[in-house]
């Protein structure tokens, strides 16, 4: 059901505009509306959005600092401080925040940069240490000379032939003042160490670079010393780095303890103010007053008015503006459904929201969807499994809103499933019947065994289709009446009459109804056909065929259910046919599990489809505006 909306106008002194906007923002109930018609009057102008850019910049910095600082502020503490600071003007908040940024930014960034550098050094040292450990066995074969440089090359083993090409080149570059030793490090890598006079350094390196050889340059401070010595030095340096990083972490921790809450509070407050400022161009101002126009759900009207009254007394006035019916079409749509219907709003998101004066079909969806689902699945065992699955998933994903909604739908739908399971005498297919637990109910002269009573079920499905489509057409009539669309109204009424006539005619032909009904149905057809032609023209008549097709489409309620029963029976048969008891049980359980998963997916999809394609097409227009109140977005509703 859609909540009744009221159009309101808030008028107040301009000097208080910031507080007025803030009160409305904190209330979070008004759906703002542009007020261009005031602007025709030169006295009024739209408000300036002001310092949004400056606030964005400061926010960016605050976010940056908060990201570097470890830990998170406590929500309760943020709330408390928020309450204390809320009264401050945007300018004061902004200057406070700037001061905080000034105080923290360079310090925090320095620490972060130092930490980053240390991390980089540590990674590099680890890489060197790894290579050094690998080439340590070669060291004994290497002369250490003052004024000579050591370079280590790592080459994949399959390309080791390249060493034979490098050696003569190095010889040429260094005038034979070099040493070149190669050895296999492991299964994949060959290392080569070259020692050469420092004066050829540049040429050697550029030559190696041109050959695309992976060269590991030993850092300056570890050059010209034994590898063992270098390794122990590296180890020592790593320890120092760890200590230094610990120190930095401690410093960041102290800063975080002191500032995290403040940062969070100012970030939140400034975000709110930014949002408020950005909405300012939807407000209107004269020299001394401001005006805010918007839509508000009727049930929030008093609460918001009281909040303004408490804060400003009579200085700020909130009045209801009378709206002509054609304007009401533009009011935003706010679903205000009882708890049992609420989950089904999930399916309403598949189409654009209804226009305000349209009838909201979500309560009908909540009524028909579980019935369709129940008839299709119709099994006590499956119903219980779906109920259990729904409850378990709801508990596991408490924070995921769509999962909560979907699982609520499953839980609600599991009850009709159990009910129809009782009617059809199904407990995991025919397992219940096998063990003598239950039998299909004999009702209206029919034993509702789904495999045998196929034709009665088909008739039931089509009958449900007729009812559903007729409900849809009736809503279409109401919508057309609300909009004073005479032609639409005639079309829907004509369609209902013609389809009813055709159904009566068919029923008379198959001798379900006495033969005099032929005349009645002919009269109905003759009476309603002109209405249909008047309302919908030739297309209206062609539409009759599509409506009949829509009704036949409800046969799927029986057909998908049938497929599900047969699969359940196959599971039982196959399980029973296997000689080994355990294997039989495992196979039966697996097949039933597969069937339950299919049973949750396919019937839901087809029930939704029956609504969106067959049902909605009879009345739904959509294209409404969703109610989006001006305020901080609520995480949970």
């Amino acid at each position: 059901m859609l909540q009744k909306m009221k159009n309101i106008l808030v008028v107040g002194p301009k000097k208080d505009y910031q507080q007025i906007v803030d009160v409305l923002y904190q209330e979070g109930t008004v759906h703002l509306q542009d007020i261009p018609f005031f602007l025709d009057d030169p006295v009024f102008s739209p408000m300036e959005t002001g310092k949004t850019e400056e606030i964005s910049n400061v926010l960016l910095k605050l976010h940056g600092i908060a990201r570097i600082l470890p830990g998170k502020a406590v929500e309760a503490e943020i709330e408390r401080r928020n309450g204390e600071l809320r009264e401050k003007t945007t300018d004061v908040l902004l200057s406070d925040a700037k001061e905080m940024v000034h105080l923290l930014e360079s310090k925090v960034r320095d620490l972060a940069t130092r930490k980053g550098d240390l991390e980089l050094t540590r990674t590099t040292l680890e890489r060197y240490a790894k290579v050094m450990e690998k080439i340590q066995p070669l060291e004994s074969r290497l002369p250490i000379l003052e004024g000579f440089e050591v370079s280590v090359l790592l080459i994949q083993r399959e390309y080791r032939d390249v060493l034979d090409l490098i050696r003569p080149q190095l010889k040429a570059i260094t005038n034979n003042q070099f040493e070149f030793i190669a050895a296999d490090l492991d299964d994949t890598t060959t290392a080569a160490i070259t020692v050469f006079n420092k004066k050829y350094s540049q040429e050697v390196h550029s030559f190696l670079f041109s050959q695309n050889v992976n060269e590991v340059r030993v850092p300056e401070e570890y050059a010209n010393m034994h590898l063992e010595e270098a390794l122990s030095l590296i180890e020592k340096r790593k320890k120092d780095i760890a200590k230094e990083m610990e120190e930095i972490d401690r410093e960041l921790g102290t800063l975080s303890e002191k500032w995290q809450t403040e940062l969070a509070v100012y970030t939140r407050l400034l975000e709110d103010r930014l949002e408020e400022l950005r909405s300012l161009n939807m407000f209107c101002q004269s020299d001394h007053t401001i005006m805010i126009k918007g839509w508000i759900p009727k049930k929030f009207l008093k609460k918001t008015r009281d909040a303004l009254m408490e804060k400003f007394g009579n200085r700020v006035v909130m009045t209801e503006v009378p709206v002509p019916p054609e304007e009401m079409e533009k009011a935003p749509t706010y679903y205000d459904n009882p708890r049992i219907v609420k989950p089904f709003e999930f399916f309403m998101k598949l189409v654009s929201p209804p226009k305000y004066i349209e009838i909201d079909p979500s309560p009908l969806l909540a009524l028909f969807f579980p019935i369709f689902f129940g008839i299709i699945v119709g099994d006590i065992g499956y119903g219980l499994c779906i109920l259990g699955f729904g409850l378990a998933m709801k508990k596991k994903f408490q924070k995921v809103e769509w999962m909560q909604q979907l699982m609520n739908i499953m839980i609600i739908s599991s009850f009709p499933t159990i009910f129809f399971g009782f009617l059809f005498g199904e407990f995991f297919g025919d397992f219940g019947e096998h063990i003598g637990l239950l039998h299909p109910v004999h009702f209206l002269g029919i034993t509702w065994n789904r495999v045998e009573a196929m034709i009665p079920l088909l008739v039931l499905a089509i009958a449900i289709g007729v009812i559903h489509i007729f409900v849809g057409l009736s809503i279409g009539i109401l919508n057309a009446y609300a909009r004073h669309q005479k032609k639409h109204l005639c079309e829907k009424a004509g369609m209902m009459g013609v389809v009813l006539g055709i159904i009566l005619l068919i029923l008379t032909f198959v001798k379900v109804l006495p033969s005099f009904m032929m005349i009645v149905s002919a009269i109905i057809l003759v009476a309603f056909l002109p209405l249909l032609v008047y309302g919908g023209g030739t297309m209206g008549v062609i539409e009759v065929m599509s409506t009949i097709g829509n009704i036949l489409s409800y046969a799927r309620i029986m057909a998908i259910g049938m497929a599900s029963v047969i699969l359940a029976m196959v599971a039982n048969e196959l399980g029973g046919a296997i000689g080994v008891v355990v294997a039989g049980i495992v196979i039966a359980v697996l097949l039933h599990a597969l069937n339950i998963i299919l049973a949750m997916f396919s019937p839901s999809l087809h029930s939704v489809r029956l609504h969106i394609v067959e049902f909605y097409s009879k009345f739904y227009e959509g294209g409404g505006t969703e109610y989006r109140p001006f305020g901080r977005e609520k995480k949970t509703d």
Partner: protein
Amino acid sequence: MAGWEIPLGAAIAFAAGAIGTAWAQSRIGSAGAGTIAERPETSGSIIVLEAIPETLVILGFVVASMIIIMVE
């Protein structure tokens, strides 16, 4: 004892529906996958669109069952 014509008729009714559905769903599926990649928010409608051609196979199934049950 029914002749071979009845089960064959039922099989044709079902198979034709299934082939029709498969053909339509494959085309909707590939187009839908492309759409979802570009605009993930459309996934709800695409799933419903994907289910639309299933009417064919369901009606095929109904006709096949009716042939088997009703044709003596």
